[in-house]
Every structure is written in structure tokens, then in C-alpha cells.
């Protein structure tokens, strides 16, 4: 569904985020896509190949992490992962009091950059905070 317009949105968002890294080249764009997001990966990859040509995204990979549906069951008082998308009752107890915790995601999780610097002794920098979200403590590889 609309893979091309989704990809164009991805390219625009990633390009905008690169203003802090003017010399950077994008190596990888990582998506989180829930099982209910109704996105076809092959179509996405095809469109990405075309849309990423040129400038900072050229040659970058699009990596899609598919997320299963996770429900929180009130009766079981725990989160339960679903095998598919054909039944949304709790698979453990059959209960109907469920809340979806995961499954509808359609988001850009992160991007991996080659920031163009050549100082191997440099301490890895902290990740950038964007959109007011808290920093992650994950250190990049070099």
C-alpha cells in the first residue's frame, strides 16, 4: 500500500535529519514495521532503490524489522505475542479483554551514517536526541 509515497517520506525525513551531519553518507536506514501495517517489503525495497539515488542516501540499505502483534491480556495479566493476524483474542486464555501493545508500527527507527571523519582514536559520540526523545545509550561501532 503506497510503498512509493512511504519511501518518499522516508527519504525526506532522513535527508532532513542530515543537516547536523553535512559530510555524512547514509549506510543504512532501519525501519520498524508491525504485522498490521499492511506494507509489502519487496515493493518497498524496489521503490527505495529508485528513490535513494543521488546525494547522501545513494547506495544505502533499507533494513526492515518486522514486528509481530503483541497483546496485553487483562485476564492473564501479561503480554502475549501472536503468530499471525487472523485472531486477536488472547491465544493463551481466549479472552477478549486485550490491548494491542505492538503491531501497527510504521516508523523509521534509526539510520547508520558514515560521517566522513577519519579519526580512529576518537571516542564514539553519544547518539543524537531528535524530536525530544530521550537519548539511547547504545554506542556506534567504528
Amino acid at each position, binding site marked *: 500500500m503506497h510503498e512509493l509515497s512511504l519511501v518518499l517520506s522516508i527519504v525526506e525525513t532522513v535527508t532532513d535529519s542530515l543537516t547536523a551531519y553535512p559530510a555524512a553518507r547514509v549506510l543504512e536506514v532501519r525501519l520498524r514495521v508491525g504485522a498490521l501495517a499492511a506494507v509489502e517489503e519487496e515493493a518497498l525495497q524496489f521503490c527505495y532503490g529508485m528513490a535513494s539515488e543521488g546525494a547522501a542516501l545513494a547506495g544505502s540499505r533499507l533494513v526492515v524489522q518486522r514486528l509481530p502483534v503483541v497483546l496485553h491480556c487483562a485476564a492473564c495479566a501479561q503480554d502475549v505475542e501472536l503468530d499471525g493476524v487472523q485472531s*486477536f483474542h488472547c491465544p493463551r486464555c481466549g479472552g*477478549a479483554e486485550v490491548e494491542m501493545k505492538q503491531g501497527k508500527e510504521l516508523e523509521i527507527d534509526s539510520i547508520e551514517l558514515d560521517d566522513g571523519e577519519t579519526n580512529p582514536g576518537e571516542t564514539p559520540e553519544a547518539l543524537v536526541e531528535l524530536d525530544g526523545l530521550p537519548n539511547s545509550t547504545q554506542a556506534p561501532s567504528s
Partner: protein
Amino acid sequence: MTTRIVELRRGILKKNDELAAELRQRFNAAGVLVLNLVSSPGTGKTAFLERTLRELLDCGWRAAALVGDLETDNDARRLASSGAPVRQINTHGICHLDAEMIGKHLNAWEKCEEAGNEGTREQGNEGLGTERLGNRGRGPNETGIRVSLSDLDFLFIENVGNLVCPSSYDLGEKIRVALLSVTEGEDKPLKYPTLFNSADAAVITKMDIAEPCGFDRTTALANIDEIRPGIKIFETSAKSGAGMEEWLAYLEEERKRQGKSL
């Protein structure tokens, strides 16, 4: 080479989600209950909505409708015969309504304006609905009709007939209604789980011809509930009026509940 990982955590449809959130605030501030009707083409959304509008107006409620189609203003004309203010959104090829289209048309309605040719496929824009006047004279979008959200109890948005794409585009609605007719097969919810799981209520339409269609009511109800446990399901016929009383009671109850939360 130094590599770094930059977290973005940004929704791909973030632009629509942000506009939808603004609409939702606007609807709440105006005290209007907004419903988004989604279904396949031919399910009977327009006939169902026409009957709904007539009955709401008969009870003294103030209701209006925005209706989306690729082409023609036929549906808006039919709905306007109910006496309710109705505005047609023509998408000229876009298979769903989005929050930007809704916002633009509501703004134009408040100013008695046409939405204008703000975006068409020829211009290469992602797509804004364009409003069209009917070929047979003045259409339901004629200028001079002003509709303000604060003057309404209900705003119905009849989406483009499509069970796939509308599921991803939040329009700021309070209630998303998935419609399914007795002619479509009982397994429709299983085939389109994303849409049916996103719904807050379901309506089975054309119940007056359920029997000749061999409609398996038990299976249909079970399948809808399987995809969206506990969802409210209404079985109606716009033609005979069957089930409309329960549907109207639900609308009134939801409207009163919204009024109390203001």
C-alpha cells in the same frame, strides 16, 4: 571511517498523524462527534448514511457529512437530499481521504469557499481533494453555504470505498465504523484484518437481502469479533429501516458521552 547510529523514531506517516491530532483537538473543542465510515465500494455506505442523516435530523440533531470519491458528486447530491449540509471531496485518483484534505475542506466550509484546485495528480502533489460542482447546475458544494463545526452535533466522513489504504490514515475521528454488506462474504474481516481491527464499531448492511444471499450471520459475527474482540456490531437495512433504531441509540449515547467529557 567513523560510523554512527542516529535514532529517529519517527513515524513514516507522521505528517498525517500530526494533522489528524490537530483535527481531533479541533473536533473536541467544537463539541462535535466525528465518525469515519470505511468499507469496500458498493457496501452501501451512502444509503446507510443518507438514512442516518435523515433520522438524526428528524430527532432534532444537527449533522453534516463530508463524502470522498475519486470522481462525481453523485454521493453528495444523494446525501444532501436528507437536508443535511454535505460537501463532496473528489480525490481524482487518490484511494483514500487524509487529514490534510479534511482540514482544507472544513476550512473552506467555514468560509463558504471552494477548496479550489490546490493539488491534482498533474501537479505531482501527494494529493489534496478538490471540490467539484455538479454538472447539472449548482451542486452541494455551492458557495454560500457556511458550516461551522461548533454548529454541529455530528460530522460523518464517508471515506473512499477501499478496505486497504484508509486503515492507515487517521482523520481525527472519534469513531471509525467498518461496514460490510451481506453480499460480500463472511470472511471479509479475515481478509482485511488491518482495517477491521482498527474499527470501533461495525455495521452489516443490506440485511433485507440476507436470506436470498445465503448470508451466514453467525460466521460473519464471529469473524468480526475474532479480528476485533468486543466490537459493537449493528445489523441494518437502510431500505427497510431494520436495525436503525439501535444504531441511532448508539450515536446518541456516544454524543452525550462526548458532551459530558467537555
